């Protein structure tokens, strides 16, 4: 699904825009635990999170995640925005809850990532 189609669905406000609206998003990961993102996430996924500190950008950088959506309208601090600009990571803000964002995007046809299994 193109980013342009996702924006109205969860009312995204752009904070840092690097890639254009044609960027294709294939999977979504909703997570507040950065170690879990490091453990399970794949390249090119879009991360939904309620965390706004700069370590979220670092985690995205290490895992090659290019899009981060901050849910619940939580605006990230300046350091987070500056680091995202430096590292070329797109940031958006949604007023909706994590649950709503995930539900809407899932219903619209976006998939979860395939995860490595621990059990």
């Amino acid at each position, binding site marked *: 699904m193109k980013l342009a189609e996702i924006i109205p669905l969860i009312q995204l406000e752009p904070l840092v825009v690097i890639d254009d609206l044609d960027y294709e998003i294939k999977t979504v990961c909703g997570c*507040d*635990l*950065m*170690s*879990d*993102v*490091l*453990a399970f996430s*794949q*390249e090119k996924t879009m991360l939904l*999170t309620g*965390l706004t*500190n*700069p*370590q*979220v950008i*670092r*985690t995205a*950088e*290490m*895992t*090659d995640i290019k899009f981060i959506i901050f849910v619940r309208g939580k605006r990230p601090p300046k*350091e987070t925005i500056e680091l995202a600009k430096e*590292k070329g990571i797109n940031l958006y803000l949604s007023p909706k809850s994590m649950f709503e964002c995930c539900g809407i995007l899932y219903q619209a046809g976006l998939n979860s*990532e*395939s*995860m*490595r299994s*621990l059990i």
Partner: protein
Amino acid sequence: MQEQVILRSAIEKGDFARGGEASSNLKEILRKLGVRSDINRRTTIVTYEMEMNIIIHSLGGEITVYIASDHIKVVAEDKGPGIEDLQLAFQPGYSTADDRVREMGFGAGMGLNNIQYYSDDLHVETGKGQSTKFTAIIYLESPSKEPNS
């Protein structure tokens, strides 16, 4: 080719503001060296977990990364206080991190498990009251671990 140092970085205890800088620098170095992107990703995840572990759990330490013709070696060595029960520390979900660390999204108890998963070979030297040394090897031609590859 013998192992050559490509990164050496001192990591301070509690320095969350700079957490990830060494790994970020490494990612760029590996990119410039033309290392396969999934190997770069695995190596930087391993290094980032080690870097955050030094910041969160240790009294400070150092990360050194070497490259040779067929592998990358990441060595993280700290000044203590050591891991008492290594088997427990590797168990997914187990963590001794405090609330402050958890609020930043860490302390999920996946760090050591991640390091092991993304490394081809891992060696740990530690003990209560001792320094801890992690040595991880990632082979440059290692098969991809990306779930969809």
